[in-house]
């Protein structure tokens, strides 16, 4: 293939973070001019790191980058921008208190007499480009007041106004409604027709199939190869992404659920942007069953979990564990009722990175009698507890005194899971328990969850991974737009296509059907 075919050539890219995590290992990534190229992979596969390197936000430990035939050193975003690269981040890079126009011209604001910002001109620039690229926005609105879809348009405009010819979009549809997604795709195709090159990061198969020309798949920091989208089946993509056939080998006996442990009734929450995030959510989780919550991210799952662990305050509704209220109380009290949580964001809630493994696994139980002797810690008790947990949960480490942040992602999650599952919980809330971790750790954690549920624990599983939530759950609810739109009391007969329709809000069950999940 001729050299000049490619606008971007990343060769042999490696990246080791200061905490020792090797996010990219000798990755090759080539993009043709004028194509929509998907970069695929599970969370934690190294896609974002690779793109941060291409946008100058991270410097590679090793490897070279050629843009438009020129060897470049992308030491900062401004260098990347000057090479015609623009990026739309997953979490919007906007300044909320500034207006749309101010955000768009940020860093290159038009000026009068040298230093004064020419705001009128900024509005003109915004309107002009909005029209040209057919991305309609309100230039004078403050960013904090506009809907998500418009924010994304502002982001794309920002890149285009800066002369980007290569656009990187990091999971752009994760926060969008179906409608907005459709709109975005039209815009992207139109940009492609105007000669722009688009790199599209995603792990949603249907989207990739719909709009991309070629795709590169990443797994565990390595590239699994580049393919023509038309020439590869979804099953093949899944296999390359997850490293095994889609059908999971979760071995589990049929559940024998009995008696509700968690009862959630009519939970309501409106967030600070006045969006109704939870809209009359009611369900029960029974002893010995795994109830899954499926849904595209951002449909209220996160907030629901926050409420159930008192990390947020609902506007209305109740939630009880074995008859006792768990809303708006202290985490200690919640844990005493036998609730444990594998949090979605393990680095923020799950661990204290610079502390040792030992210190991390006892954080919920350090006040217990067996770990204290009078005023002092019972060092032996703590040591044997942590050694046990390290062995039981197969945490790969040098010793229990190793800093948790030095472990790999999978082992960090095992530390969290070891703590949360070993406290004899009556209710386990597992929020994205295997996100971004290696296959071995994933299977281990899934097996543990099944084991505990069969021993009588109630499990609430939240996962954006459709395979996981179908295979692991005994029964399942689907959330869409802050509501439960479907309940399936038996997951064994479910297929992805049907689920997809519920998750995207195309279908919903009747209230009576949904109400069954309350078990009253």
């Amino acid at each position: 293939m001729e050299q000049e075919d490619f606008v971007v050539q990343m060769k042999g890219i490696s990246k080791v973070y200061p905490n020792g995590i090797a996010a990219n290992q000798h990755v090759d990534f080539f993009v043709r001019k004028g194509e929509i190229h998907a970069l695929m992979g599970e969370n934690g596969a190294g896609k974002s790191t690779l793109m941060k390197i291409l946008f100058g936000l991270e410097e590679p430990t090793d490897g070279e980058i050629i843009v438009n035939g020129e060897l470049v050193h992308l030491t900062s975003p401004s260098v990347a921008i000057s090479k015609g690269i623009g990026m739309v981040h997953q979490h919007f890079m906007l300044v909320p208190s500034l207006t749309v126009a101010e955000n768009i011209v940020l860093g290159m604001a038009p000026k009068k007499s040298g230093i004064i910002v020419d705001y009128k001109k900024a509005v003109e620039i915004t309107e002009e480009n909005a029209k040209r690229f057919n991305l309609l926005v309100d230039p004078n609105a403050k960013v904090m007041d506009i809907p998500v879809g418009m924010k994304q348009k502002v982001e794309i405009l920002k890149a285009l106004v800066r002369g980007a010819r290569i656009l990187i979009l990091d999971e752009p549809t994760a926060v969008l409604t179906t409608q907005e997604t459709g709109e975005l795709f039209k815009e992207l195709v139109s940009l492609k027709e105007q000669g722009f090159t688009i790199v599209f990061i995603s792990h949603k198969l249907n989207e990739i199939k719909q709009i991309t020309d070629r795709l590169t798949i990443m797994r565990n920091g390595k590239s699994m190869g580049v393919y023509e989208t038309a020439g590869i089946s979804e099953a093949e993509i899944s296999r390359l992404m997850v490293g095994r056939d889609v059908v999971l080998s979760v071995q589990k006996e049929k559940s024998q659920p009995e008696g509700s442990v968690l009862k959630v009734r009519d939970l309501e929450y409106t967030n600070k942007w006045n969006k109704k995030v939870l809209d009359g959510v009611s369900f029960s989780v029974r002893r010995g069953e795994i109830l899954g919550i499926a849904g595209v991210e951002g449909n209220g799952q996160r907030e629901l979990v926050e409420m159930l662990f008192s990390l947020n305050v609902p506007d209305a509704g109740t939630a009880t564990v074995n008859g006792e209220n768990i809303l708006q109380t202290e985490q200690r009290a919640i844990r005493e009722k036998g609730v444990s949580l594998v949090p979605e964001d393990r680095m923020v809630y799950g661990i204290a990175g610079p502390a040792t493994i030992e210190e991390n696994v006892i954080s919920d139980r350090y006040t217990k009698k067996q770990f204290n002797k009078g005023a002092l810690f019972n060092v032996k008790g703590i040591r044997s507890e942590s050694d046990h947990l390290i062995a039981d949960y197969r945490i790969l480490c040098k010793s229990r005194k190793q800093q948790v942040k030095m472990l790999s992602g999978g082992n960090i999650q095992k530390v969290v899971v070891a703590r949360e599952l070993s406290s004899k919980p009556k209710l386990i809330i597992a929020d994205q328990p295997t996100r971004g971790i290696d296959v071995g750790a994933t299977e281990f954690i899934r097996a543990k969850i099944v084991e505990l549920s069969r021993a009588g624990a109630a499990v609430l599983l939240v996962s954006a991974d459709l395979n996981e939530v179908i295979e692991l759950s005994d029964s399942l609810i689907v959330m869409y737009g802050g509501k439960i739109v479907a309940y399936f009391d038996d997951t064994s007969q479910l297929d992805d296509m049907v689920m997809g329709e519920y998750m995207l809000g195309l279908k919903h069950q009747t209230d009576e059907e949904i109400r069954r999940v309350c078990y009253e």
Partner: protein
Amino acid sequence: MFEQFLSTILKAEFLFSVIRITAPILFAALGAVVAEKAGVVNIGLEGIMMISALFGVLFSYWTQSWLIGVLGALVIGVLLSLMMGFFAFKLKTDIILAGIAVNMLGAGGTIFLLYMFTGMRGNTGALVTPNTLIPVVNIPLIKDIPILGEVLSGHSVLTYVAFLFVWLLWAVLYKTSIGLDIRAVGENPDAAGSVGISVERIKYIAIAISGALAGLGGAFMSMYYSQGWNSGMVAGRGFIALAAQAMGRGEPLGTMLSSLLFGLAQALRTKVSGLQGVSSYLVSVIPYVVTVIGLVIYAASTMQKVKKHHTKAQKGA
């Protein structure tokens, strides 16, 4: 006694002194505002004021020019804040610790430098001559208005500069591109970085402006207010400035109002301590207590607002 007290503070002379006392706090508080807008906590204001105050006196003594003295103080303020910035942004020293280090330099380093440069200990009394002091300005027309003239006219050049800077800083922050960059960096550094704004450069600029303002505050103290430098001179004004910034919600105008409040407290302290039977020490506490009360009211009202939006989740307490 109360009547005596009332008659003292209801005079034009008292209001004049409020403005005079507010000026140095205002300089430093504006310095805190600009740093905070860029997301930088400048706790080194106190030390910067001390060191700049000393160099203001030294430069003016060496050149016999008050203007060069003031400019020298400003430059020293900038250099010190850039040093703080270097350690904080480049070497990743906690910005608070970097500020504490500058305050150490301000406390003992100044005494050392003064001795090394002049052989004097503790104060610069002998170095000060009329032409090394910042001159006062009588504003034509206004000075002839009764009361108002007495209050507003006859201040030092730098006093007027301080109040002018409230407006100027507002204009810089809200009307210029550098101000736009500063606000963007403070509110969402990732966003600013993603459009090619060098976050580090903007933070350097902000802390340099902050240092320049604290430098002017220092010059004001030694070259006008105290008429000479001494080791106990700044007396926490740099810290009070931080509180004024917080109470003023980080905006120039609000910060000016809270600075005036502290100025008022200080002026009261001076007046009250002149009265019979009042402990000068207890009176000295007034500005600091006012600061704490102000901070508490501010914090409580913020807390209330946060509660209304019921997003208190992440906070520790």
